[in-house]
């Protein structure tokens, strides 16, 4: 026989593909694009570049039998781009609300951002991220305390995990997305929380949890039979499903 059977290999297992769209919103110059670029390409650039419309980057994380793909949608912070908000929010499983820790007014406008996003997508997990922690740390202790308290209030209202981060100094960057993933799929995260004022806060355990019991890790058979193409893991998010590619 001309064909050697040795070249035949068993068909490999197909990798599961988990696609998660995450939107980044917040005022201008709080560091949305920086955070995204830092997370995807691990580059930090001091120069400010205004985002025109929406920036889009993907990061793929290869696990043994699963690929996690984070699609990051970064919306320009200027008011004129508000009409592009649906791009960043509709279809996103998590929305990261960023504010500048050194500029309290940016935290104030998170209210408005949240209101807008909630109108478009009330299923996405909100995550409250304070940026430029490296500059914040040098500021007045009283100011730090005040800000921390306000942020905590916001987080309570939004039911959003709090993360203080610094793109320049690479503080809590990876954790933002790990927290997002754990909230989306209701996974148990065991990273210790950081709650002391003045430290880069990381408070996630009591926020952003899904209320419904059915949204446990296990996939209920009724769901999977309704959509045989993809086993939906979390009923709260329509988009975050595990599909095999």
């Amino acid at each position, binding site marked *: *026989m001309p*064909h050697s*059977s040795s070249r*035949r*290999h*068993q*068909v*490999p*297992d*197909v*990798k*599961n593909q*988990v696609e998660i769209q995450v939107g980044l919103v917040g005022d201008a110059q709080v560091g949305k694009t920086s955070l995204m670029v830092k997370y995807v390409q691990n580059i930090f650039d001091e120069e400010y570049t205004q985002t025109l419309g929406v920036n889009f980057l993907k990061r793929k*994380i290869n*696990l*043994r*039998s*699963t690929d*996690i793909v984070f699609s990051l949608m970064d919306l320009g912070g200027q008011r004129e781009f508000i009409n592009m908000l649906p791009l960043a929010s509709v279809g996103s499983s998590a929305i990261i609300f960023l504010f500048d820790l050194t500029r309290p007014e940016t935290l104030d406008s998170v209210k408005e951002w949240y209101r807008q996003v909630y109108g478009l997508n009330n299923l996405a997990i909100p995550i409250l991220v304070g940026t430029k922690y490296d500059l914040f740390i040098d500021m007045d202790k009283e100011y730090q305390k005040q800000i921390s308290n306000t942020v905590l209030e916001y987080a309570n209202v939004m039911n959003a995990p709090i993360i203080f981060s610094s793109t320049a100094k*690479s503080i809590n960057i*990876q*954790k933002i997305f*790990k*927290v997002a*993933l*754990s909230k989306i*799929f209701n*996974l*148990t*995260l*065991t*990273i210790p929380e950081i709650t002391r004022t003045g430290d880069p806060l990381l408070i996630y355990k009591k926020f952003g949890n899904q209320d419904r019991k059915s949204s446990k*890790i*296990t*996939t209920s*058979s009724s769901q*999977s*039979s309704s959509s*045989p193409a*993809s*086993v939906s*893991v979390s009923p709260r998010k329509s988009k975050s499903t*595990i599909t*095999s*590619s």
Partner: protein
Amino acid sequence: MTPNDRSTFIKRSSENLLSESSLQPPQKRYSIDLTNDSSFLTRSNSAPQSRIKLSRSPSPVRLSRRRHPYQFTKSDISLTPIKGNNDIIDLPLLKIHTKHTSIDNGLPSPINSPHKKVNNEQSCLIINNFAELTLLPTPTNEACHQIFKIPEIVDKILMNLYLMEVQQVNDIERTSSNRNGTIDSTSRVSSTTENSQQLAAANVITQRRGTLHNCAMVNKLWNELSMKYLLRNLTFKDSDKLMNFMINSKTIYEGTKNQTNYPRSMTLYKLNRFNTEDLSIGFGCNDTTQDNIHFNNLQSLQFYICPNLLPMDSWFKEFKNLKKLSLPGNKRIDDKFMIEISLHLENLEHLDLRACYNITDVGVVSIASRCKKLKLINLGRHKNGQAITDVSLVALSKYTHVETVGVAGCHITDSGLWEFTKNNGDNVKRLSLNNCKGLTNMSIPYLVSYNYLPKLVVLEIRDIDHLTNVKPLIKYKLWKKAQNSPLLIESCNRITKLLSFEEEKMKKKRALASLREMQQWINEDDI
């Protein structure tokens, strides 16, 4: 511009045109009815606007000097008094008629956007120019255009028509065969729907009698030239018409002796009572030297629902170019016939012999060993399955690179399928194994899980009672989907149920595995 100026303009522009018109004093206003619904100048309060419009009009000097396209003659203009809405004075209405008024009601006036009118006129001109090309004599146009008398041009026209019609049929065939990858009924590789669509397409052409058909009825020249193309593809659904054609074939083909006119495809459909003897009588005689019709160009020969009809022996030697032979459901076809015809079918690519119960391994082997270019073979059957065994399958795999194989209802076993895929698995795109009772878990599941059939697109596994291990099939299907070459598995109720159950199970398992991995990942330490 004062009202005075305006009146002088009207005066001047119309002085050499109007003789009897009683020009009004300057205080009076004129209504020039240029288009049907022109509101222009009819109301006193619109006067200022109209003044501006008037100022754009061509100079009266030019009007008078040479004949302008929009120029009107004396007789075209009449002044009729109209009732002004608010005015006590009756205003005369200026009506202008020119030779253009027949084209449209409004005078093409330079005041009322002349461009539009010009365009209108041009389009009229174009239509007029093409109107001269009328082929058939019309009451106004007695003779057809000269170009329709030039054979070369007519030939070009007809050739394009022919190509369009062929294209149409091919398109329908292709789309239908693409869409329903294969079969609906239990034992066919090319589905019944596909065939019915093919036939429907053919019918469309024959029923509508096609454009070519109409062309043949124009005149002698057209008839001669379109017959050339009409005779290339023969489709008959009616034995009377076929008989008629055969009797006349001598005269038909006598006139056009050159080879290009011999048929390229021949399709007979639903000639239940017609048999081969009728055919030989119809076409004159058994004496081949006097045959009126030749099949040197024949590429496709299809007899549908003609159980008693076989191609005549005398035709075989002319089948050098035959690519497609479809004789489904033929009762008379047997191994002897297959052996004889296979000697001549060196270019055959497409062989449909489903439900030809009298064919056995002998016939298939003779075809396989001689038709090296074979791409499709369908031997599906309900009866007499034991006549086709692994021998046929192995012969096909050894001698040909066949891509589509239908052995539904045949006595195929695991070892035969293994041998077949070992030799020819790389080429196979469609495989129909419906109702092959000899197959078990020892072939298909292993063949797919080791990717022995890399090009497989459609797999039919209906009613294979001993097939129970479908997990590899699902795994393979998912893998193929990930490779962007999805696999269609056609199966019966039992196997479909098994497949979907297994697929569900696998997906659930993998989703859980993913979640476990993700949980592990998020709890890992970062850099």
